[in-house]
């Protein structure tokens, strides 16, 4: 039952992604499927919490509404008219070598995280002190869910949004059990979705080999991968940020808006990024073009706003002003953290790999993705500025604060930063001698019965 409720959430996410951003080829379909993980878990977490707040307690109501939404989305997809298929760029003769390497690196990373999760099934400190204990409140009987925002939860941030706790509680309630396996499995799903979103998202935006190179850079970042088994909210947030960033660059505003709302429901940092990205999209892509993003984000942001204004206790940062004497400490810690991305192995440091790629492939000057790229770059810049400001304002000892959180903050934005880098890079397909002519467009029916009529397979 727990597995079924997880799969229903992911299927719903995939269907919503397909409805709001119809896929044009196998890679964009894979991107929508991968985005379905954070989107589906986010949307069902929203639904679970809103129904709890409205007084619904019956599991039949939760499961029935989700199933009805899934069936409705599936029916619309089935009836949707045929879409024009545009094969992904794939002219790099040796792309399969990159594919094998990226798949092996990703599988090793996922296997390593799964093995570590078995050793720490309840996750790290914050998992049982914050996220999963709040999940137990949300899965509890009667009005126990209100303890998840109780001011008595001192030093454990009862003002934080509830996407992760809500997703875990939902699986516990619908699955009929409260064991640690569900939380660990969800953490692994969020983690595994990140390289998949990166490969398929960049693969459909630029080229297949560019997506694979982005995955290779990500999997050479052990400080990011090491967050996988923690069961904290930082990896889910990184998945939402990456998905939203790629959708902004792929000009899929509705999907971008929904992922922004999911980010805002995951952590306070996600709320900053969501507002920054939506504003940046309006600035760089135009108000009219970004209106669907705002419209798609609005319901989720309204829930987050209602949660913050009506339920959550006040933030510990309220009324504090920045202490700029802390700036050198914060900047030094940030520099140390970037230097430590490879956990001390300088030969495989991701910056070294990125520098090599920039040297070998050079950067692209223009493309249809450029306005979205600028918006994401501006949003990530605003996000880093917000991190710094929070450190300047923290009521805790700043040395302790940066020592216990900087690694996680960098992890939140790292996949989106890698996507930003990989998008701007010239694709190997144009730099290396091509081995096959571009494939021509084909017509393909989206939805349940896919009738492929590929004129020619890409190499």
């Amino acid at each position, binding site marked *: 039952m727990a597995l079924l409720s997880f799969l229903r959430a992911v299927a719903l996410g995939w269907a919503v992604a397909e409805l709001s951003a119809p896929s044009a080829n196998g890679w964009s379909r894979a991107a929508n499927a991968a985005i379905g993980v954070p989107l589906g878990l986010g949307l069902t977490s929203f639904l679970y919490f809103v129904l709890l707040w409205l007084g619904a307690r019956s599991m039949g109501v939760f499961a029935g509404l989700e199933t009805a939404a899934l069936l409705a989305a599936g029916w619309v997809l089935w009836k949707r008219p045929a879409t024009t298929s545009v094969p992904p760029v794939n002219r790099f003769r040796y792309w399969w070598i990159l594919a094998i390497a990226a798949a092996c690196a990703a599988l090793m*990373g996922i296997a*390593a995280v799964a093995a*570590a999760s078995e050793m720490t099934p309840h996750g790290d400190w914050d998992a049982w002190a914050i996220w999963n204990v709040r999940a137990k409140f949300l899965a509890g009987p009667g009005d126990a869910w209100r303890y998840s925002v109780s001011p*008595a939860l001192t030093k454990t941030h009862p003002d934080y949004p509830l996407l992760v706790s809500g997703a875990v509680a939902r699986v516990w309630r619908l699955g009929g059990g409260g064991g640690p396996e569900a939380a660990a499995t969800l953490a692994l799903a969020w983690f595994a979705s990140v390289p998949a979103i990166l490969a398929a998202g960049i693969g459909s935006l630029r080229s297949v080999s560019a997506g694979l*190179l982005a995955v290779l850079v990500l999997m050479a970042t052990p400080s990011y991968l090491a967050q996988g088994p923690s069961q904290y909210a930082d990896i889910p947030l990184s998945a939402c940020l990456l998905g939203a960033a790629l959708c902004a660059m792929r000009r899929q505003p509705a999907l971008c808006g929904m992922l922004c709302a999911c980010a805002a429901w995951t952590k306070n940092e996600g709320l900053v990024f969501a507002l920054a990205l939506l504003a940046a999209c309006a600035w760089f892509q135009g108000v009219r073009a970004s209106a669907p993003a705002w419209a798609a984000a609005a319901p989720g942001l309204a829930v987050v706003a209602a949660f913050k204004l009506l339920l959550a206790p006040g933030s510990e940062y309220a009324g504090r002003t920045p202490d700029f004497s802390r700036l050198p400490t914060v900047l030094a810690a940030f520099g140390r953290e970037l230097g430590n991305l490879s956990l001390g192995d300088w030969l495989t440091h991701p910056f070294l790999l990125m520098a090599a790629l920039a040297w070998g492939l050079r950067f692209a000057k223009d493309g249809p993705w450029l306005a979205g790229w600028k918006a994401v770059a501006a949003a990530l810049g605003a996000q880093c500025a917000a991190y710094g400001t929070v450190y300047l304002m923290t009521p805790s000892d700043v040395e302790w604060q940066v020592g216990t959180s900087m690694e996680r903050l960098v992890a939140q934005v790292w996949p989106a930063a890698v996507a930003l880098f990989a998008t701007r890079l010239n694709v190997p397909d144009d*730099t290396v001698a091509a081995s096959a002519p571009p494939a021509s467009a084909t017509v393909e029916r989206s939805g349940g019965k896919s009738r492929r009529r590929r004129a020619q397979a890409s190499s």
Partner: protein
Amino acid sequence: MNLAAAVCFAVAALSLWSAMNFYGLMSKTGPDPYQVGRQLSRYAEAAAQAPAEGVLGYEPAEQKDGKAQALFYIARYALAPRLVTTVPGQKIVLKDEESGARLEKAGGR
């Protein structure tokens, strides 16, 4: 094969090397340093006796060090969906002592 392709293959090789190192590092991960699974059994009896929901007070046995703080959060995790809090004035209190954890009505023993 030109420079760009060579760079791509070098990046692939280094990434694989890094992923293998990470796998080796994580496969040496020791058991949970806080022994959460084992500590949960410490609170199992109290969880069985406690009302299905409500707020419970908490009295730690030890001084305020890292271990005592971990025990408090594990106790809260174990007894959820009841809310365990250090805020005084609760009718039922979880006494966390060296010999084990037990529930007590406030003022009584």
